[in-house]
């Protein structure tokens, strides 16, 4: 399985301010790239550019060597993106939410798998409640259950630790690590300090530039 997402000389301007300029980065199989920086430094924007949602930038994004525009279909079939908003419908139950996401990936899926995924994320017993009755952390867990349900090599996660409790954070961190061990790649923004690991690289966004560290 090939997995290589590259960005070359990426630059993005918002409101007459450069969020980042001349940014080169690469995500390969078996790596976690953590994007860090203060609020408003362009982390979410960078993730949206790298997941092909924003086209309004300079430089190019390559998926397995081909420009993202041309390889879009293949790229999307390999991508799991969890955004800032969890994308969970509060009028639907966790099971119904997951059923839609599974179908969106083109899989029929079945209820036992969905139940198992919810259970794995600590939502056993909540699967038939409208998500509106769940806490923010539980709603986030519904979204995170897609990591289990829809296996995709590349994970792009925008603040996945938001509203998650301490045990959940530890388990999610282990899950990210396990995903890279299986040959997946992870691009993540978080203010949470990730455990040091040989697989972890960091990208610091700040005033007008980005630096990739070892």
């Amino acid at each position, binding site marked *: 399985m090939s997995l290589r997402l590259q960005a070359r000389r990426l630059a993005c301007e918002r409101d007459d301010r450069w969020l980042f300029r001349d940014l080169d980065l690469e995500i390969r199989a078996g790596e976690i790239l953590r994007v860090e920086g203060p609020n408003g430094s362009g982390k979410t924007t960078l993730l949206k550019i790298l997941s092909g949602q924003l086209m309004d930038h300079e430089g190019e994004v390559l998926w397995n060597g081909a420009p993202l525009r041309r390889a879009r279909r293949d790229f999307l079939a390999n991508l799991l*993106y969890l955004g800032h908003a969890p994308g969970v*419908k509060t009028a639907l139950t966790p099971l119904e939410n997951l059923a839609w996401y599974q179908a969106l*990936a083109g899989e*029929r899926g079945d209820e036992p798998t969905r139940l198992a995924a919810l259970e794995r994320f600590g939502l056993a017993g909540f699967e038939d409640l409208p998500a509106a009755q769940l806490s923010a952390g539980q709603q986030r867990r519904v979204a995170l259950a897609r990591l289990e349900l829809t296996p995709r090599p590349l994970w792009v996660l925008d603040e996945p630790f938001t509203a998650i409790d301490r045990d959940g954070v530890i388990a999610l961190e282990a899950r990210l690590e396990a995903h890279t061990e299986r*040959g997946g790649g992870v691009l993540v923004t978080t203010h949470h300090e990730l455990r040091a690991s040989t697989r972890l690289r960091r990208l610091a966004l700040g005033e007008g530039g980005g630096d990739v560290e070892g």
Partner: protein
Amino acid sequence: MSKAESRTAPLPEAGEASVGLAIAWRATLHRDLMLRLRRPGEVLNPLAFFALVITLFPIGISPAASLLATIAPGLLWVAALLAALLSLDGVFRDDAEDGSLEQLLLSPQPLSVLALAKVAAHWLLTGLPLALMAPLLGVMLSLPAGSYGVLALSLALGSASLSLIGAIGAALTVGVARGGVLLSLLVLPLYIPVLVFGAGAVQAAIQGGNVAAHLAILGALLAAALIFSPFAIAAALRISLNG
């Protein structure tokens, strides 16, 4: 959240995306219908608006049957059109706010086809009930007998075009706070042909004109909207979320 148990299991290769399109389409339609039915207020709002407007006309103008019968086709069509327009704003907005719209855009399935499922759900719970309700309100406007079937049919055909065209506007204004007025301004000019031939069909049924011709043109408008608007909706959504 426990540790992933299948640490060494290889990641599956991504499957062929087109296989699952039918599954994704059905699931999106099903989800949107379910969401609307769980908030019955939103389904009933356009119907209540339609009924209220039509009830007020005989009171405001004149209860004379001969006068009402002349203006009934136009009144019914204009009121139904506005009722459908009022319900359009929410088609994509809720999804945009909770983040599921970006997930829809990131699905490997073609966005235009999935958007069509959302429009279908909107029509099934807005346009179709309006069309079914119109003959009842026609009685209040003393619409001549024999034109009820044409009224319902023309509204069913026409409102499907209205939903499709309106969804383009809804997609364009999804990023605009309180885009309701802008949406109306964008979409209303495009609604005029549908209104002309829709009201014309009912008028023709009353006066014994050629109903089939009007209905055929409504059908042609619907066919054109079905072919072109999914692409326009998809492009509009991409533009809206790209800012």
